[in-house]
């Protein structure tokens, strides 16, 4: 709950922080393996102070996009710049300014937890061992254990402590809360918000929609290697869906509301019709209009990320915010 409050509070701050030059920019970025397009014509911009969410089913191209940004993969077409540096030819310089948590972070098994923190803190020019140790303490991780004897969750915590140590301008996290219990998940999301408040930019890939809703101010949806939709979370906050039952078979929308509402009618066998209204903007004028309709069983719900995600996943186009397709 605190997270949501904090998010709403800081949206305007984030808008202010945005600079004209993007921190991260992709232009028609593509990666092809034979006939298979892992990523196709992906163009996206992330601005300073953004907590940018990447959403999409497995194999959608989220990790491919991240790996292209860090120079693990060479693009087939297009180019990407991170903090003004070319992601392919200047990848070492890019990684000096970016910390990255892989989706499946594996660490040297022969080392102890503290040894791993020390190793990575020494390797990165912005590495901060004390900060990494503090994160490990916060995540309740015993760093005396050898990595080989750590559980999957412990290893994930250790990797997070490694990644959250250096104070880089950009932080890329690929499924950071995988394998973590709810308490630690909340702590990790808090770390993400703290990074944002420190003026850092965060790119976050996750399957957990609630996490994206809690932390991100912008979200991009990928499907089958394409960036199919992009939205500002602030737009989503003003969207609602009303479901109700009526006896009629049509509804007249007042002209002043017609551009802010989508009506769907679903006739039932008993002569009733299910009405679904998707609204955009302030609910007040809609409530007056809805009161004039002879509706029953009225139910309002926020138009959550789940709805958008399902629409994108099923291939429908959604008319919220920016759309890249």
């Amino acid at each position, binding site marked *: 709950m605190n997270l949501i409050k904090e998010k709403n509070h800081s949206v305007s701050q984030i808008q202010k922080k945005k600079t004209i030059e993007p921190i991260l920019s992709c232009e028609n970025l593509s990666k092809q393996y034979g006939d298979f397009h892992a990523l196709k014509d992906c163009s996206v911009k992330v601005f300073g102070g953004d907590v940018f969410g990447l959403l999409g089913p497995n194999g959608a191209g989220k*990790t491919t996009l991240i*790996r292209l940004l*860090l120079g*693990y*993969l*060479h693009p087939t077409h297009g180019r990407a710049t991170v903090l003004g540096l070319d992601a392919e030819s200047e990848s*070492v*310089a890019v*990684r*000096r300014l970016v*910390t*990255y948590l*892989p*989706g*499946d*972070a*594996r*660490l*040297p*098994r*022969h*080392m102890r937890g503290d040894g791993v923190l020390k*190793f*990575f803190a*020494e*390797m*990165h*020019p912005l590495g901060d061992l004390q900060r990494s140790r503090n994160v490990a303490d916060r995540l309740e991780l015993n760093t005396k254990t050898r990595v080989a004897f750590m559980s999957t969750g412990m290893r994930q915590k250790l*990797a997070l402590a*490694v990644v959250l140590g250096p104070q880089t301008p950009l932080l890329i996290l690929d499924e950071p809360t995988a394998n973590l219990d709810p308490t630690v998940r909340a702590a990790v999301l808090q770390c993400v918000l703290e990074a944002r408040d420190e003026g850092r930019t965060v790119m976050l890939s996750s399957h957990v929609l609630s996490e994206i809703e809690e932390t991100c101010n912008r979200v991009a949806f990928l499907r089958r290697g394409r960036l199919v939709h992009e939205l500002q979370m602030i737009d989503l906050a003003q969207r609602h869906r009303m479901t109700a039952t009526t006896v009629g078979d049509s509804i007249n929308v007042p002209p002043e509301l017609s551009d802010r509402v989508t009506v769907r009618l679903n006739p039932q066998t008993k002569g009733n019709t299910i009405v679904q209204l998707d609204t955009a903007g302030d609910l007040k004028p809609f409530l007056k209009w809805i009161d004039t309709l002879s509706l029953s069983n009225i139910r309002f719900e926020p138009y959550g990320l789940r709805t958008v995600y399902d629409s994108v996943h099923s291939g429908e186009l959604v008319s919220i915010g920016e759309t890249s397709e």
Partner: protein
Amino acid sequence: MNLPLDRVLLKKYVGQSMLLFCSCAFALFAFAWVRVWVVSLLDMGQFQTILEQFRDFEKFAPIEFDSLFTYPGRTGMTYDEPIVILCVVIWAISRGSDVVSGELGRGTLEMVLSQPISRTRLLCSHAAVSITGLALLCIFVWAGIAAGIYTTSVSETVPTPTIRIPFLEIDVPMALGEPAKQTLALSDRVDVEIYAASTFHLFAFGFFVLALASFLSSIDRYRWRTVGATVAIYIAQLVMFGLGKATESLSYLLSMTFFSCYKPQKMTSMIGKTDSLWSPWSLTQPINETSLPPLYYPLILIGLGMIFYGAAIICFKRRDLPAPL
């Protein structure tokens, strides 16, 4: 010149390979020492009788049998012992195969390369540790031989004075009874320094295998496949060497196998023949009419190894690094 080495990575690779190094070093040192001691147990006369039985197979031997009737020759055979070769090959293949496909398979490359370190730097740091380890292993063989030579004594039959009967050309012993025996230190018969060139050959041999394994590792993603490919090439080359030695019609195979460049015993016998410790280091004086100067052979192995390392750097820099499975 600024070497592309990373101190932290060097430390990590040393730690990773320490157990294998200590095991191989102990095995090589102890074996070389014990082997020299075993040489002292065999009476030279008996050894000669045994070897004479196998004259037909002399062509398979790395050097002519006559060289083996001397203590330096028999001690020098250590460099062709399967245990010595095996330990060096185990080190070379296990370290070489680890550099890319090993780290990829374990999933640790992702985290290491998320740090601001170039792929060339990573490969060179790994190579520095592996090559230094290999050099030390070769020195351990030499040290084991030295330890054996300085701690072993041999018992020799003192030649009985004879008198030659004119016209009949028959040597008649001047004393009757058991021939006298004398005990003397092996170091009186064998100079440790004569094995410097053989040690260098062993290093060159190991370097070639190490570089080959590193190259195959740099283009692969599975360590088991890298090890399999390296062993397959090694066995194929060994078979070619055996066939080339076996029949005249297949002798051309000898010029196509790297085993032809491994001549540690030849170096020992060269010193015996020329009475010069420097003769194996010549770049101008051929071993015999049909061969190259002796230093060419290890340099060919080292040169090929350098080519493999160069190819490994190029391939590693150009390739895409897949996410861990």
